[in-house]
């Protein structure tokens, strides 16, 4: 069903090659139902962020017992209530929280946690702890959400490799690390002439039949046109905030540019890292949390200046949290549950879920209190307005953090 739609879309795209740049994307952005302009941004904390030193349980005495050198002192914590507060590096982020624009879900994890970066990240990305799924949870959302097949930018990963969370069966997702360098490195294609080159790569009038031919031709066409069109489509955007001069800051600036250029993009992916702080954690995590807070603060200021802040929801995730007890090298090893931030859009700010107990650990790790699939179900049902059971499985009730 969807496959047919995909191929038809590809065919119609081919027929229109040579029209003015960006014709499709712009036309698409101007159509659609009232809520069709909602955007989800996922931020991946690569490497496993230490949740305990992000949302700090300063009111739990065990925290100071387990973290003799790494604990954030009670004086330094940016207090949320009498038990928890934020790492001081998150000051600009705390300002957003105080304005009611941040929901913090505590103790998010899944049963039988895996401590391998690869597998645990894959579990978070596929929302499938019990099997090896071949699509990401947002890929499955895209597959089911009637994305216009001719739009080249239904979803955009700001990354140089397509992350598994956006791997879909039927929707081609662009992976763009930065505008400079996206696309063909060779200008050989240009000397041929644009239309002829498209005709080449999308040639399906060939003396063989292959079940993959139409898809290859269509994706090659997507790739070519996408690489050509994107810089022009986003050229008119002027940022209205100063982003950190970091890879993460640049990624968020590009995300805002894509969103503000109204290409019909529904999902974006941005990453920050590496949080894999086995040794001398403080310096690394401080730098990354500050980068996150400054970046997100600039991002929402930029979006607000363009009138886009209300339609953009941002959610964070990581490989896993880290072990409760610090190790002997002022770092932490792989752990389990950690907080998830949901920012902007129609979020009802505040704390959600329970902070896991530090007195009833499971092999040195916190027991999760909210299943990550409930957070996904919330975003799917309340923000993206799609049924979640087919995407993350049945039985995950949405949390009340979105209207």
């Amino acid at each position, binding site marked *: 069903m969807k496959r047919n739609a995909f191929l038809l879309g590809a065919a119609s795209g081919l027929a229109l090659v040579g029209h003015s740049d960006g014709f499709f994307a712009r036309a698409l952005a101007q159509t659609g139902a009232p809520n069709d302009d909602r955007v989800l941004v996922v931020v991946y904390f690569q490497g496993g962020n230490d949740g305990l030193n992000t949302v700090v349980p300063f009111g739990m005495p065990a925290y100071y017992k*387990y973290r003799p*050198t790494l604990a954030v002192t009670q004086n330094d914590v940016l207090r949320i209530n009498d038990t928890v507060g934020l790492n001081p590096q998150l000051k600009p982020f705390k300002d957003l929280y105080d304005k009611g624009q941040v929901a913090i879900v505590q103790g998010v994890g899944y049963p039988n946690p895996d401590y*391998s970066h*690869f597998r645990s990240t*894959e579990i978070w990305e596929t*929302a*499938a702890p019990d099997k*090896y799924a*071949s699509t990401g*949870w947002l890929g*499955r959302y895209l*597959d089911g959400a009637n994305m216009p097949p001719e739009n080249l930018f239904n979803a955009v990963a700001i990354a*140089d*490799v*397509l992350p598994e969370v956006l*791997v879909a*069966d039927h929707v081609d*997702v*662009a*992976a763009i690390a930065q505008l400079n360098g*996206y696309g*063909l*490195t*060779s200008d*050989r*294609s240009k*000397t041929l002439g644009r239309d002829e080159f498209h*005709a*080449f*790569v999308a*040639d399906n*009038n*060939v*003396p*063989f*039949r*292959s*079940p*993959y*031919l139409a898809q*290859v031709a269509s*994706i*090659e066409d*997507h*790739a070519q046109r*996408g*690489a050509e069109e994107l810089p022009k489509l986003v050229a008119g955007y002027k940022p209205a905030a100063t982003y950190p001069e970091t890879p993460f800051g640049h990624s968020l600036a590009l995300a805002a540019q894509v969103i503000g250029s109204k290409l019909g993009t529904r999902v974006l992916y941005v990453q920050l890292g590496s949080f894999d702080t*086995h*040794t*001398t954690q403080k310096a690394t995590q401080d730098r990354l949390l500050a980068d996150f807070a400054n970046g997100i603060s600039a991002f929402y200021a930029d979006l607000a200046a363009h009138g886009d802040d209300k339609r953009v929801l941002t959610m964070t995730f990581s490989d896993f949290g880290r072990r409760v*007890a*610090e190790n*002997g*090298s*002022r*770092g932490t090893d792989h752990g389990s549950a950690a907080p998830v931030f949901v920012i902007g859009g129609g979020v009802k700010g505040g704390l959600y879920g329970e902070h896991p107990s530090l007195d009833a650990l499971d092999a040195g790790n916190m027991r999760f209190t909210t299943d990550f699939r409930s957070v996904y179900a919330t975003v799917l049902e309340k923000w993206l307005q799609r049924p979640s059971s*087919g*995407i993350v*499985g*049945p039985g995950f009730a949405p949390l009340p953090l979105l209207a």
Partner: protein
Amino acid sequence: MISHMAAPTSAAPAALYRPPGPLDLATALEPYAGPWGVRQAAHLYRRAGFGGSPDDVARATGAGMRASVDGFIHFAEASALPAQPQLDDDRPNPGQRQVLVAAAQAGASPQSDAAIMEARKAIGRAHRDNMIAMETWFLDRMIDTPAPLQEKMTLFWHGHFTSAYQKGIPAKALVNQNNLFRANALGNIRELTLIVSQDPAMVRYLDNAQNVKAHPNENYARELMELFTLGIGNYTETDVRESARAFTGWGIDRDYNFRDFPARHDDGSKTFLGKTGNFTGRDIVEIIFTQPAAAALFAKDLLNFFVYSDPEPALIDAVAALIRKNDYNLQPVMSVVLRSNLFYSERAYRALVKSPVQFVVGSYQLFGIKQSDNVALGALRRMGQILFLPPNVKGWDGGSAWLNSQTMLTRENFASSLMAKMGNAAWIQRATTSMDPSAVSRALVATILQGDVSPASTANLTGYLNGNNVSALAALSGENADERIRGAAYLTMAMPAYQLA
């Protein structure tokens, strides 16, 4: 559990990429007696190898089907290739181990940060160097081997019985595992399964080293059945638990050799797939291979890898019967498949997506380049196929999973970068001596794509070579003419047919 499969909008029909048209089951596995030419010879080279050089394909065209398949099935001597890469020691030395063990223990007196960082950095550096050395070694073997099917099967097994350069597994152990795949490339599948079950890298990768009588670890037992031999639905959770007990005690010693530790083994009675006894891992493998589902799983995987995607159940049954008839010896099975009507049918032709590894290796072979480089390794990473680092125990999904706009741009950029080296290829020199644009474009599409393009594309290519009537090829200086021809070859490699095997 299989959550997304339940979604009506994304439920993919099982046969999404099965070629159109009917399967003639009665004659499918009979020997092919149809026309034999460059089209068939190149097809054989793409499937049983990685594409081969134009000279390879020409030789196979002249030799005919029977002799060509024999050449693939009976491996040529490959001992001139390096048996292993140069590796750094990636296991902590006693001093480093002491530092790191102490550092990992909470409450221990903190090690000096400098010592910890130094130990970690040294190991990290060795790890990175080894990763590059292993990838390059395997790629170069694939590129230059006189026994292409042996390397193709090694890649198949690497994606089937997966292990990865993670979890502290030494590079040496992964290289040894790779050489086991090579030594058993077309050997007996049951024997290879037992060998893999006792392979140190696998024992570590799927945690059988932690599988002991007091605390059974089911990871290996489960994946052995789910992914490696039987498939979901052909065993129960009880079978997983019981077989895990049978595998208890199979571990690795300090030197990373396989060792059977009797004291860790649960020698009680187990009931597995309807049989009861004091089974060991060896018995479990034997019992698994009495199940028809085992032959069916390998039949399906081999058809998906060598013939076409989503093969018909009846075809899987026919190949499974062939596997059982040959008692799981793969060489006679592949001999039948590679000579079959099915294999040379229009339905199988260009019906597979080239994996990134095949794209890279085949392109090197096409232009006679013998050694891979960092450009190739970077391209493979961006295309999603890192040798010795499959994404998970399931291996690479393959097929449409290789296709998205990022991977496609990477293919084209890789092809473009390769053009800097293509001038050494003798066939290019021969094909371009005339400087006649239409002769050159015909030669390019014939050699690179066996003519699998539309007449319009050939005409476009001629137009490009002719400078679109503004700067004729023959009028260009040597360097500029060269560049024009490189451009034309690059454009030919960007065409859809080149993405398909």
